[in-house]
């Protein structure tokens, strides 16, 4: 194995930082989903175990095989989608939808049609749906400002300072400061946090039309446009010419297995990928794959002690998780809103998609993300041909 010669401390550090960031920010969104589903801590532990193991196995395998720093993670916009669907959706239905989504992504991967499908989706509509899903999290920061002003203001100031001073570590530092503030101001107690091994729990999948339309299809869409697309772009801008085919295929195969334990779709990372693919991981691009492997190994550790992570999050107030999740998503919300606002050719259809998705309105049992895409696609076809820009241009 080449890996004994190629390993380096910066690469391993990069892998570690990437995992730490995922657990600090995006995991907070997953916790909000778990809270809205009103599940037990044991079940939540199983979910965290499943997403961590999925990311670990696929990341280690792909990085070693392709000799490219492939950082995988769980679909962050997918977890945001979950928050709007629970508790109307049952766990069994959710798992069924995860399996359907994994199948669809697998077919897209194995047939090599990823690039073609990405081109078919109007870019504004995809970003608008994503922005609509994430919108509630952004607003959540300021809603918490009314109920727990001191904690929220402290966290916002900490976020702004850290983001300005050390953008890379800002989420990790925010987590630390946030926990300290929650203990000091809100009287949270970490007594219940102890080292414990995770026990995965099997969930019997149940397939329904409802879950397919409200969860599986939007999940595929946000995973493709929100994770695979930016993730592949990050790899390419770092100079790796890897094709999307093996990555999409392996990630979806992994998702298929972790789904049974509550793990949402495994995808290529977007938020943390750049840490492992950049020069800071290693001077030599051919040796950065070690960072991808290290990232996977730290996910294995995280998955094994998932119970401890769950205990940490559940002992903190709900508003803390809401503010943390919202701040972690600020960048994503900004880039998605900017992306659809800049897409002048079908702006009206995008705004309709955004409003319908952000409204959180569900009817006929289907979630707002689904209706957002339907409304957007309809408006795109009805309006975009006669679209005239608003007078000021």
């Amino acid at each position, binding site marked *: 194995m080449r890996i004994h010669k190629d390993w380096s401390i910066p690469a391993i550090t990069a892998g570690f930082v990437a995992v730490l960031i995922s657990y600090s920010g995006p995991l907070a969104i997953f916790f909000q989903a778990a809270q809205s589903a009103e599940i037990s801590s044991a079940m939540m532990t199983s979910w965290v175990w499943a997403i961590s193991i999925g990311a670990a196995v696929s990341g280690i395998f792909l990085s070693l095989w392709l000799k490219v720093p492939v950082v995988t993670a769980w679909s962050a916009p997918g977890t945001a989608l979950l928050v709007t669907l629970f508790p109307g959706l049952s766990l069994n239905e959710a798992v069924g939808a995860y399996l359907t989504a994994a199948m669809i992504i697998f077919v897209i991967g194995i047939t090599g049609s990823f690039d073609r499908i990405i081109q078919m989706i109007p870019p504004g509509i995809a970003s608008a749906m994503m922005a609509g899903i994430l919108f509630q999290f952004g607003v959540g920061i300021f809603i918490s400002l*009314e109920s727990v002003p001191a904690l929220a203001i402290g966290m916002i100031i900490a976020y702004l300072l850290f983001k300005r001073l050390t953008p890379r570590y800002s989420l990790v530092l925010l987590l630390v400061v946030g926990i300290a503030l929650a203990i000091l101001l809100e009287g949270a107690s970490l007594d219940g946090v102890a080292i414990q091994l995770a026990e995965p729990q099997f969930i019997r999948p149940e397939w329904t039309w409802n879950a397919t339309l409200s969860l599986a299809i939007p999940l595929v869409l946000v995973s493709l446009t929100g994770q695979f697309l930016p993730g592949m772009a990050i790899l390419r801008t770092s100079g790796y010419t890897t094709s999307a085919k093996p990555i999409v295929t392996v990630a979806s195969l992994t998702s298929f297995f972790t789904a049974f334990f509550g793990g949402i779709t495994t995808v290529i990372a977007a938020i943390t990928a750049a840490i492992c693919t950049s020069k800071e991981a290693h001077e030599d691009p051919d040796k950065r794959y070690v960072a991808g492997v290290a990232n996977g190994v730290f996910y294995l550790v995280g998955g094994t002690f998932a119970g401890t992570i769950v205990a940490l999050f559940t002992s903190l107030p709900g508003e803390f998780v809401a503010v943390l999740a919202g701040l972690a998503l600020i960048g994503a919300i*900004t880039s998605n809103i900017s992306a659809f606002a800049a897409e002048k050719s079908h702006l009206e259809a995008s705004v309709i998609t955004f409003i319908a998705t952000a409204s959180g309105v569900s009817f006929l049992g289907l979630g707002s993300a689904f209706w957002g895409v339907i409304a957007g696609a309809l408006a795109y076809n009805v309006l975009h041909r006669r679209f005239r820009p*608003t007078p000021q241009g």
Partner: protein
Amino acid sequence: MKHIEKGVSLKYAPRDFLRDLNVDNASTGLVAGILGLSVGVVHISAGTAAGLDSSFIMIWVISYLMINGLFGLFMPAYYRLPLPMANSIPGALMFAAVIPVIGLEAALGASLIAGAITLIAGLTGVMGIVMRLIPMPIVMGMVGGMLLSFGLNMVEPLESAIVPASIMILAFFISSRLFRKIPPLVVAMLAGILYLIATGVDLSGIAATIRFPEFIVPEFTLGAFLTYGLPLAIILVGMETPAGVGLLKGMGYKEVPANGITAVGGLGTMVSSFFNLHSTCIAAPMTGICASPEAGTHDKRWVAAVIAGAIFVVAAPFYGYVVSLLEATPRYFIAIIAGLALMRVITSSMAIAFAGKKHEIGALFAFLIAASGIQILGIGATFWALVLGVVVSAIFETKDFEFIFTREIAKKSG
């Protein structure tokens, strides 16, 4: 007075009104007027919640329509811009809440001082400078966030009243594609009314009453000024005026009389305080409707604001009647019409805020805060949206602020 922008003139206003009147601005003016009338329901619920006498609440709403409506006739006619006037909603909520604590006369005295502060902000030209210094993307982020709730409220009835809601929304979009002559808003309204008639709306509870505003002498106390007057002044100068001015700029009006709007709002607030009313200022959501592309060409949109003002003045004495009419129409009706009227304003404010790649994070904070609708220290979200948006942008996007320096240099060299 040198900072107050000059308008066109009032002399030819009636003649020009008839010349510029068309079906686009008439229909948007009607929608803006109805939206403004429906706001009276906020006063009623806030007043009732604060335990105020129902007879006083009625006088309060009637003054709101009558006084704000008169100023709303004057402003658009003088400036030939869509400048509808109304009162401050956060101000109304505060007013209702403080009356039981500090007394009506003292609250009105505090309003009078707040109006004087606002007038001074306009006369000295402070407002114009502030509006030039706040970057446009942040202002438009705030405007977009504030108006977004109208968009979301339009979608919400789809859950409970899917049939009429989808009829109205579809009528709007289909007619905007098929008929160029008839404004889609009118089609949507007619579709909604037809549906209501077909399903049988209950109009039996409607009763007519006639009342007029009543004169009252305000009183001055320091406590009232600190608890209510100062926040109200901040609301009027920092929140209501920037929202209205920003909207007009966003809709493509180059010369917006920021100082004039502020000064007249201040003067109007001072007048209001003698008639049981807490404020007069530019009405942002109504401005959005009157200044929207739905109101026809730019130079004729002022007519819409005049119509909205006229509806206020005419409806004021009969507000008891209006209330029972509003109660008879289902809630979704006004929500959908207002949402449709503001669709394109929301679209273009988001485009201005986020498509320029400048002040993006500041604009996002402004957008999210305004959309969250939070109130801190009794001051509404749009004020905090501007303040935090500018602070955040100054921290992260320092170089985007270069426009301030380049403008100063341009001014000196020019």
